[in-house]
């Protein structure tokens, strides 16, 4: 899909739009315009939120290519579902939910977990995670190697701060399962990171 989609345009940079709203009202206005099928407004929303969505997708998939596809899927789904956004939550939170669904959908259907490349080094690349120091780099790499279920819960709960109720709701699992997966993730991470001196 990515290969197909990236052939669309080679001069997108010419159409780059201003991305930073002066106020929350600007974002709300863009949302309203996008809900009326204003693609330019939706592009502004994309520019504003793509790093948040891509970051989540990359942390959840541990794979650059998958994360790119999931990000595209998420924004395409968001465009089609935008009229359903009522502002009950922040737009970024709503987008996160859409992104999680995109990740789960792709991973469930494609079953490409086994094909994931070791993206630990990529995760730690300065261009994408400049603030990650050595210890955080090790942690990011270890998270990427977690089993899928444990990784998803750990990313949503520990990295993005969602409660177990929220994470469970987003992942379609029970709150108790979310807690169990977090416990599993922490155990696995500590087992991997302690020999590297993470806790010293």
């Amino acid at each position: 899909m990515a290969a197909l989609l990236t052939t669309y345009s080679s001069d997108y940079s010419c159409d780059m739009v201003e991305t930073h709203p002066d106020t929350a009202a600007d974002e709300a206005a863009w949302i309203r315009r996008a809900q009326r099928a204003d693609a330019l407004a939706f592009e502004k929303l994309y520019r504003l939120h793509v790093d948040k969505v891509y970051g989540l997708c990359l942390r959840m998939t541990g794979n650059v290519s998958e994360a790119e596809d999931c990000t595209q899927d998420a924004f395409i789904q968001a465009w089609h579902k935008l009229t359903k956004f009522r502002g009950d939550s922040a737009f970024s939170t709503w987008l996160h939910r859409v992104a999680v669904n995109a990740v789960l959908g792709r991973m469930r259907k494609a079953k490409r977990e086994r094909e994931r490349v070791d993206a630990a080094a990529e995760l730690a690349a300065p261009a994408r995670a400049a603030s990650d120091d050595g210890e955080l780099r090790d942690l990011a790499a270890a998270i990427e190697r977690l089993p899928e279920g444990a990784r998803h819960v750990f990313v949503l709960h520990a990295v993005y701060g969602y409660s177990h109720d929220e994470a469970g709701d987003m992942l379609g699992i029970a709150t108790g399962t979310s807690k169990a997966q977090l416990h599993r993730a922490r155990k696995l991470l500590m087992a991997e990171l302690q020999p590297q001196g993470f806790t010293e």
Partner: protein
Amino acid sequence: MTDINDDKLLQAAAQLDREISPQRDLWPGIAQAMHAPQRAGWAPMFAQAAAVVLLVGASSAITYVAVREPQPQLAQIAPALVFERASFGSNHELGDEFVDARNALVAAMNVELEKLLPTTRADVEANLELIQEAIYEINQALEQEPDNTLLQQRLLSAYREELTLLRRVSGLTRDIMMRNDI
């Protein structure tokens, strides 16, 4: 593992970057998918594709009959080889014209399959079953996400594989459908 270590782990996790810039601009692909026609012109193309497959099946049968050797008693076709009604999820069901053509093709294929060698027939059936399982699963997914362009693309790909399998029988090579057909 101690609580202190756990706390440090969670504190470190909370410091990880939540926002990461993709290495390339993903907007062009999104924009393309946003504006791509959802079903423009696909029904006639599928009908044409079905007609081609029907022709392929018939010509293959004729070829086979012309060169076949005496065969033992014919075995019955596996009941599992049943073509599902094709669709693109709840919002994109295929047209009656295509369905009729496909049903006619299925009937013709069932007749011809009975005449094949058991091993050949088993191979054909196994391959078709695999493809049809994929079509079924993708359709199930499309029921949940009818506007998912990736699923639509994969469904089209599965249909294409089905047609390719049949085309190989008679050596046809040209593609019939493209992504824009849906």
